[in-house]
């Protein structure tokens, strides 16, 4: 399902990261980076909450607004019951919609926010966060265990990102959004999330092109969420085999966020904050300089549940896409 938006703009964005991202390739595009993983808090879970509050504070300062001007917040993260977002919102005391779509939460939030703007809301803030250690602890082994992992593993990024949406003609235009389907092609390897998510991305890209009647060349760049380097290749092969679409102007935020040559991040970055960290910083800068005019952002999420995986079920995935344009 693709929805076209007439007058929705991302006016302002903010990004907060942890130390690993600050050592990555895109470090100069972040608003704030912390040197350690605690962000001055007692636990990693509380640090994640802190990063959301930081991102919102920076967003308010950059856009010169306050919380009373915001109609609603839309946000989510990876933690159980999206705890990080809920606890961050406790301090804001403004209407809030909590969402979960794993690592595709960012684009789902933008689609929902754009819809609210279209139906009359004035200002909406969407945000997402993730924290490497909080996610490792919840989904994998204890943090200090550090057991050996296969090359296809992705590294959950740390940080938070927020975006201010309104109908004011400023910043980047959200032209349309495609809501994805849950896709499951029988992959049960929790260390190969790229393979889990690639079919969902392919499905969403194809649906988007079908719904809008466009070809893939319409976009200056197709940007997937966090497939990692191997997932990227799988998606290219998948698109070519299934839909005879060749992905040429294509990149993956998971591959872009870190310096894979120097940092031990295996296949690349992942996490709900991975796609917005790259997009809000680096990609928007490119768009403002008119180097890129039309970008299709396809954030991908593996809907992994450790209980279901232990019950030998395969992992479903989802992907939501938004089409971004430079506002004229």
């Amino acid at each position: 399902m693709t929805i076209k938006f007439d007058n929705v703009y991302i006016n302002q964005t903010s990004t907060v990261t942890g130390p690993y991202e600050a050592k990555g390739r895109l470090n100069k595009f972040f608003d704030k980076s912390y040197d350690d993983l605690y962000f001055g808090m007692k636990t990693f879970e509380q640090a994640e909450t802190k990063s959301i509050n930081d991102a919102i504070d920076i967003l308010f300062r950059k856009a010169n607004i306050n919380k009373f001007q915001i109609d609603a917040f839309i946000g989510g993260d990876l933690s159980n019951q999206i705890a990080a977002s809920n606890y961050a919102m406790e301090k804001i005391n403004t209407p809030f919609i909590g969402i979960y779509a794993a690592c595709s939460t960012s684009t789902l939030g933008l689609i929902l926010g754009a819809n609210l703007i279209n139906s009359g809301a004035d200002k909406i803030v969407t945000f997402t966060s993730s924290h490497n250690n909080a996610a490792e602890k919840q989904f994998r082994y204890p943090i200090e265990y550090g057991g050996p992992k296969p090359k296809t593993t992705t590294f959950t990024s740390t940080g938070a990102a927020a975006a201010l949406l309104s109908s004011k003609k400023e910043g980047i235009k959200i032209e349309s959004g495609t809501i994805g389907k849950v896709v499951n092609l029988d992959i049960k390897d929790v260390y190969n999330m790229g393979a889990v998510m690639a079919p969902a991305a392919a499905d969403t890209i194809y649906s988007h092109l079908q719904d809008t009647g466009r070809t893939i060349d319409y976009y200056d760049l197709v940007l997937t969420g966090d497939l990692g380097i191997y997932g990227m290749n799988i998606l290219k092969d998948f698109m070519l085999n299934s839909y005879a679409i060749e992905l040429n102007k294509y990149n993956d935020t998971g591959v872009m966020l870190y310096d894979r040559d120097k940092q031990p991040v295996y296949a690349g970055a992942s996490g709900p904050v991975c796609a917005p960290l790259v997009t809000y910083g680096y990609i928007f800068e490119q768009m403002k300089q008119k180097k890129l005019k039309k970008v299709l952002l396809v954030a991908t999420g593996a809907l992994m549940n450790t209980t279901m995986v232990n019950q030998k079920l395969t992992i479903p995935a989802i992907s939501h896409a938004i089409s971004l344009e430079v506002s004229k």
Partner: protein
Amino acid sequence: MEKNKYKDIVDENTPKENVFYDCLIAFITGGIMGVIGQYLIEFYTVILNVPTKSAAVCMLVTLIFISCLFTSLGFFDKWVNFCKCGLIIPITGFAHATMSAALDYKKEGLVTGIGANMLKLSGTVIIFGVVSSWVFSMIRMVVGLI
């Protein structure tokens, strides 16, 4: 796309793990661990005059203590990552798994945190260690009777 066809695409794009190199590293580091263990036993028997049987226990306790300490100091995970099964299989791996889980949950309370989660990884080792030791002693008993 059919699931089988997709599996082929995934297999084609999945990098091969360097099994030979990993095994070699594990063999060498695991061997070094064995040498260290033997030197510890010698140390306890020759220098501290501990009986050989107790010296083995003293060696295990020393290795457990050292790996727990290194885990807490925060660099043992990097060693495990490099040595792989060379450090995971010996008693150091067991101690490390227990300690790292305890560290993860220490801020969630003594009982609900550390107590409930400390054996999250290593609990399996204890359970199946006991089960397999029972099985093997049964086999030994039966063989002894013949």
